[in-house]
């Protein structure tokens, strides 16, 4: 798990003056499930295409197994891609789509046959080899696309928003299956998505990107619990983001009140972003709370209630299992370790 499979060193991509990737340094380890996560236009797909060999970086190097592949064309690279809209060959049936790469390699017939059947079994499409592509459902096409890419036995599979076109239920199923395949095969998956939930469920490592710059690299738990800036916090789940000032170590002021927190190492009176997750806010009686406010709206979400509570001029988003009526006076309180302090992101301004 420790060996680097892919290294990006100072990779920059410039599309006619628009910087899609800005000096990216990143390594991807053997056998990990790494997700590139970010809003559209953040450069995640461009990064994937540079690794696959469809785009050439304006500056920087891409190493696969320690070898510089910057000038190696896509068809000679040991990685394979599952495309966004599958890009299955409409003139070939399921079997021939999966066999495409093996036929190019001039593998013998028996081997091709064995491999294709193995792949069909893996994606649970046994017996559909003779079907033509347009007779398949979206979910089945997705499975063929995965089987086609895996038939080539790549060291690394690149997946470009592969589940984007599927409905919610199918997407959940495929998430679990992709994870199973990755563990079964023990190869590296690089997965591009803009869906944070998908990233959190499947990944070993998440790379959060914005405007061609990496914002944070970490495990799903790290990224969720310790977002490094307001952007990451906001992108990974819903958050209350407030402006505050670190008056001293372990003490922050916002909304005109002082709070204990667990962060230190800031300059005296440094302006910061304060992030509080909606589920970390406790509702208590107005007299007890540090802040008190009025419930503006309450919506039942299935497991919890989502409430908007106005306090000291800020509208807090609160998730709670107990319901408060609209117009009710409530007190808000939070534990010191639920207050996340972040440096103001200069790039984001």
């Amino acid at each position, binding site marked *: 798990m420790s060996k680097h499979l892919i290294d990006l060193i100072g990779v920059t991509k410039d599309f006619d003056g628009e910087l899609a990737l800005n000096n990216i340094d990143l390594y991807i380890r053997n056998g990990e499930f790494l997700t590139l996560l970010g809003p559209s236009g953040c450069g995640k797909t461009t990064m994937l295409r540079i690794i*696959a*060999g*469809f785009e050439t970086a304006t500056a920087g190097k891409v190493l696969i197994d320690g070898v510089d592949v910057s000038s190696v*064309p*896509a*068809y*000679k690279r040991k*990685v*394979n*891609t599952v*495309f*966004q*809209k599958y*890009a*299955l*060959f*409409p*003139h*070939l*049936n399921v079997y*021939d789509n999966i066999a*495409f*790469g093996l036929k*190019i*390699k001039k593998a013998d017939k028996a081997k091709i046959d064995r491999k294709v059947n193995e792949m069909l079994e893996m994606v649970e499409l046994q017996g559909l080899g003779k079907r*033509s592509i347009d007779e398949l459902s979206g979910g089945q096409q997705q499975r063929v696309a995965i089987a*086609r*890419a895996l038939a*080539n036995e790549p060291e690394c599979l690149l997946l470009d928003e592969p589940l984007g076109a599927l409905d919610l239920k199918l997407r959940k199923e495929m998430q679990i299956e992709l994870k199973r395949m990755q563990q079964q095969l023990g190869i590296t998956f690089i997965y591009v998505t803009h869906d944070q939930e998908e990233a959190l469920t499947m990944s070993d490592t998440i790379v959060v990107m914005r405007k061609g710059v990496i914002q944070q690299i970490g495990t799903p738990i790290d990224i969720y619990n310790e977002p490094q800036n307001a952007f990451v916090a906001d992108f990974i789940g819903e958050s209350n983001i407030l402006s505050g000032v670190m008056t001293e170590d372990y003490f922050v002021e916002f909304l005109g009140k002082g709070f204990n927190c667990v962060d230190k190492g800031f300059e005296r009176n440094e302006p910061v972003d304060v992030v509080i997750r909606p589920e970390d806010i406790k509702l208590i009686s107005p007299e007890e709370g540090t802040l008190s406010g009025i419930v503006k709206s309450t919506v039942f979400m299935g497991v919890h209630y989502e409430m908007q509570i106005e306090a000291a001029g800020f509208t807090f988003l609160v998730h709670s299992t107990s319901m408060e009526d609209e117009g009710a006076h409530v007190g808000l309180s939070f534990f010191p370790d639920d207050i996340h302090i972040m440096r103001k992101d200069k790039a984001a301004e």
Partner: protein
Amino acid sequence: MKRKYFATPYLAWMIVLIVAPMIIIAYYAFTGQADGAFTLDNIKAALDPIYMSVLWRSISLAVISTVICLVLGYPIAYILSRMKPSTAAILSMLFILPMWMNFLLRTYAWMTLLDTNGLINRLLGLVGIGPLRLMNTQGAVVVGMVYNYLPFMILPIYNILQKMPKANIEAAQDLGANSKQVFTRVVLPLSRPGVISGIIMVFVPCITTFAISRLLGGSQFMLYGDLIETQFLSVGQAYGGWNVGAALSCIMMVLVFICLGITNHFDKDSSGGTLI
């Protein structure tokens, strides 16, 4: 008023000027000039060996011209489809532009070039060749056909190549295909519908033309189109020309529809096949 009645005026028009005329052709082909009784004489006359040799010549010239159009047109369409969209738009416009000029003027242009005193012979004369007899040859007819119908080959192929998703090509590269393999295994098979409609759009007018053969081939190279035209306008109704001409037209029509059937059949076969 129901919306489907909107089609009524056209349906009347269609029955009178599309359906009925086809039936009339068949009627003339199978009846005698004098008595209007049923006969197979016209068909027999149309199958005369002399006429069949003309038919054979027409088919071979049309096949030659179609093949040349394909060999020239496919690379043009392919190169254009790989260009920057702005350059491709201008160049494809340039390839279509001559089509907007009148068909007769395009054919006439070659008369002036191929003439014994024309520019080509003049240029050849400068290097000590000629003058060659270029006009009134089969070559001149083929040149005229290729010149007139080449855009009909380029256009459908270009359209289909341009619409081909880039991801299909990238997927092939991703799976290890080099540029030659990408072309033979993905681009070519996927562009087949464009090739087929290009072939039809060139072959059908080539096999039935009579203006090109008259103007560039002189009177020696009678093609099937000339034959039919002569039956109608030179032999005339009174001498049974309309009946034989109708029979010849029927043969031609059957031939064209057989060609369409074959290409359609090919197209369906291909959906799961591998070779072109």
